[in-house]
């Protein structure tokens, strides 16, 4: 699993405060800790920075690049800011996160990616928003995104399709469709583009104590359909453990065996079965309940685990 660390994100109050102070040490520490925990690239989301992009984007690149060598992912809607950052990159091939399939974005952003030889994350979202159905998202990739890359001679090997994870707390019906979109996209082109998702989005607006469980169960399900790249929190130790369990097929613990079974069931286009679960083990029962909400079988509620 190729993990793009998500923690340098302006939504965090600590990040917000550190940026205000231009606290280089804070960002360097967060960058190093993510890489040490297994991140292979770092997402930098400091917002559009409409007022100070000329200074902030180069500053964050210089700051982070001073301590880590991994690719930097520029997560912003501000195309000028991204370019200002790209001009400072001296290390690994960076990533632009992202373009959508909206005509204006798709016109400009891929050209920037090509000019600076970056990889490019493209969201399967058109002008009319995010479609529910898996097929429609795949169609956006096939009919809008990939043709545009071919048109400008952008290497498909540098394209990363993001079929868009939405939260189980408000867009529950999207959750199973996203799994199928990831499955199908791998056959969408030859050679297929990389596929990445923003994993933590699945638990947006979920109470904090429930988020990690939902994230790692969804991760197991997505690894079942072959997900190999994601933007996620590498400091979530139990998430990284689930990744390891599935990659190494480590069924040595009952909970590990369950995660593996869930991934295998999804891989075989079967529904995870209650027979796979020891419901007397509270941890396994919680995993099972989480599978049920992520497959949209049972309506999500904040207290779904106590049901």
């Amino acid at each position: 699993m190729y993990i793009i660390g998500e923690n340098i994100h302006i939504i965090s109050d600590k990040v917000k405060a550190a940026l205000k102070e231009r606290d280089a040490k804070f960002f360097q520490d967060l960058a190093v800790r993510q890489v040490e925990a297994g991140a292979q690239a770092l997402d930098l989301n400091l917002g559009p920075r409409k007022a100070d992009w000329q200074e902030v984007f180069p500053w964050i690149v210089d700051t982070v690049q001073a301590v880590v060598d991994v690719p930097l992912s520029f997560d912003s809607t501000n195309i000028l800011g991204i370019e200002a950052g790209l001009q400072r990159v001296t290390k690994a091939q960076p990533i632009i996160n992202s373009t959508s399939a909206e005509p204006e974005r798709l016109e400009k952003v891929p050209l920037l990616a090509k000019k600076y030889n970056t990889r490019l994350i493209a969201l399967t979202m058109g002008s009319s928003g995010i479609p529910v159905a898996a097929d429609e998202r795949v169609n956006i990739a096939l009919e809008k995104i990939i043709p545009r890359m071919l048109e400008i001679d952008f290497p498909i090997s540098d394209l990363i399709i993001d079929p868009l994870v939405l939260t189980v707390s408000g867009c529950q019906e999207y959750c199973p469709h996203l799994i199928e979109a990831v499955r199908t996209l791998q056959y969408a082109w030859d050679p297929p583009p990389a596929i990445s998702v923003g994993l933590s989005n699945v638990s947006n607006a979920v109470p904090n104590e429930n988020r990690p469980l939902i994230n790692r169960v969804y991760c197991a399900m997505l690894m079942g359909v072959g997900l190999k790249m994601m933007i996620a929190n590498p400091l979530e130790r139990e998430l990284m453990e689930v990744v390891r369990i599935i990659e190494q097929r480590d069924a040595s613990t009952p909970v590990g065996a369950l995660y593996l079974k869930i991934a295998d069931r999804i891989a075989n286009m079967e529904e995870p079965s209650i027979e796979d679960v020891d419901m007397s083990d509270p941890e396994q029962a919680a995993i099972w309940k989480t599978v049920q909400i992520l497959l949209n079988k049972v309506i999500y509620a904040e207290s779904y685990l106590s049901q």
Partner: protein
Amino acid sequence: MPVEIVKDKWPGSVRQVTLGATAAEGGTRSHTVTVGGEASLPFMHFEAPMPNRPRVAIEIKDRRPDDWSPLLLEVWGAAADNPAEWAKAAEQAGADLIVLALSLTKADGSPTQAADAAASVKAVLGATGLPLIVFGPGQAEADNELLVAVAEAAKGERIALGICEDKNYRTIVATAMANGHLVTARTPMDVNLAKQLNILISDMGLPLDRILMDPTTGALGYGIEYGFSVMERLRLAALQGDNMTQLPMLVTPGFEAWKTKESKVGEGVPADWGNWLQRAINWEVMTAVTLLESGADIVVLRHPESVARVKAVIDGLMQPA
């Protein structure tokens, strides 16, 4: 050519909830009313019979309301000045249940006191043998104060107390538990929030067969499609076996319909909108019938003519094809 009717078989069903208690059960109601129990989508009698017909409640107030349509005040006449008389008139108009909605203030503008609320409820219970639902004024503090008094005054009558919301349910649930009553749980048109509130209430120890859920709806032309979808989704989840959604649904089409412009305004509207009273009644009836089709078990109405029409529709829908 014979046509094969496709039938769904659902693993789950809606709980049955009984309102009211007769003398034998420790109350004074002339009969009880049981709702719920559906094992199929509404009126699909060929899949599974509906054990209980949807019920019509009439909403009355503890005093003449300041903000109701003159059309409603006209039809209820002097009865609207007195909750006991109003309850009698509502029973005569065909109500299966009475909803007594408490006012925040008395006619003189001073706050309604706990003793006033208890007296209103006792008067209504004395005037009609129908099971009763009591709604607080809709402000947390007043609801809690008044409903506790109401619950105690009506102990043994198995009334339903409303309205529990996610910000204010503990006191109401506790007093319902202490006095053998039911609660109604209202959430703003959202399946996740509806289920969450049911979990929270049942976590306090109130059995699920003493909860009615009100998923909130819009009126015809004012978001009813969204309300319909939420109710349909909740009902599908119930039939699929999600026990925290297997509760009968109470909805308030009377409240919704009578606040629309079409019902409220009689002057300065296009002539081809037609007769005001007929339009207003149509609005209430169409809203209610739409909600019946999305799974409502209790519809709360305001106009007696609407009650007659909605009951006639229910009669028709309850006939197996």
